[in-house]
Structures are given as structure tokens and as C-alpha cells.
């Protein structure tokens, strides 16, 4: 767990499949504004990793459940980038 100043939301992000390849790691940390939504995280990721735009369809999970872009991110949330799944 990183220390974080009250005016920064430092979030841990898990990446799988092709998202892991784009981030070049299976876990990264990003600093967001407190009160940020998933949509804000998405924009920040796009900016930091332009290759993300190539993915047509990405979902996010918080604490192991799918969330919509409107979901507000809380400190200590476990966020996961879920590119198109292909189990089975």
C-alpha cells in the first residue's frame, strides 16, 4: 500500500490479457483526483497508454465485480481492467 496525500487518490490497477501487454505489467498504480469515476480512470489510461485505444471493448471491475463508467472509485478499491474475455 502506498502512502497517499489527501488530495490524491492513488489506485492499484490489475491488468489481464492484452491489457497486461499494453501496460507491460500485471499491476500498476495511478494517481487520480479524489472522487474520480471509472470514466476518469479510463481517460487517464488512454493518455498514459495510447495503445489502449486499439481495444474496442474494455470493461472494469471493482472489488471483483463488473462496474459501469459512472462508478466512483474509493480509496483501497481493487480495480481490474477486463479486456474481452475468451474463456472456454
Amino acid at each position, binding site marked *: 500500500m502506498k502512502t497517499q496525500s489527501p488530495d490524491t487518490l492513488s489506485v492499484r490497477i490489475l491488468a*489481464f490479457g492484452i491489457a497486461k*501487454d499494453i501496460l507491460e505489467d500485471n499491476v500498476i498504480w495511478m494517481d487520480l483526483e479524489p472522487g474520480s469515476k471509472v470514466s476518469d480512470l479510463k481517460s487517464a489510461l488512454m493518455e498514459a497508454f495510447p495503445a489502449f485505444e486499439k481495444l474496442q*471493448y474494455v470493461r472494469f471491475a471493482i472489488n471483483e465485480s463488473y462496474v459501469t463508467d459512472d462508478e466512483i472509485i474509493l480509496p483501497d478499491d481493487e480495480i*481490474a481492467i477486463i*479486456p474481452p*474475455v*475468451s474463456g472456454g
Partner: protein
Amino acid sequence: MESQIHLTDLPLDPSGIHRYLSTPASGGIVVFTGTVRDHNQDLRVIRLEFEAYEPMAIKEMERLAQVCSEQWPCHRIAIHHRLGVLGVGEIPVVIGVSTAHRQEAFAACQFLIDALKVHVPIWKKEVFTDGSQWVSAHP
């Protein structure tokens, strides 16, 4: 409804799943087994590599079993998925359902494999003779 949800690095066991699914009240058992094909379109597949967001994959599989049993009266549901490196002919997934009547078992089993392929956070990389790709990454 009882369910048996497994995510494992070990080979799956269709016959053990059959035994689990059989109950005295059941008239029909339908089991779907996925197997690794030696080709995808024109490309020759050497192996598949599966990875999962494991705790969430388990939760999603449990959720799908629950949703399924609300729609069809299932006695038992088994969803077993393999992780790691699999060669041609190996079994990535086995899904089985037992019900009183066979139509329900077919419908429930088909629902589960269709839903698994949409919702459960598991990813498959196809390794060909000359390269590899994450399946469905660029639909």
C-alpha cells in the same frame, strides 16, 4: 441446487464430473466439454495459454450457476475451467448440469457455456507456429 466450481492448473476429469452430477432425482445430465483444436481458421494452433482474474472468475462462475438455477430447475451444476498451458486435444472447460428432464439440462448447459464466454474473466492466448494472439482482444 448444488454447484461445484473449480479453476485449476490440473487436468479436468469429465467422468468425475459425471459422478458428481448424478442424483437419484435426475433424469438427464448434459455435459459440455471444450477441447483445444489444432487450428483456428487457417492457422495451425500449437497450444493455448489460459489466465484468469481468479477470485473474480470464481465469483462470476458462482453467479452464473445461481442465475442458471433461477431459470431452470437444476439439481447440480459443475463448472470446471483449466488454467495454464494446454496442448491440442486437452480440455480447457467442462460444464455439466443435471435436471429432472433433459430439455432443461440442454438449455441450462448451453446457457452456462455461452454466459461463461461473455462474463467470466478468463483469457486465452493462441500460440501458432509463427506468433501468438489474445483471442477476442480485437473483435
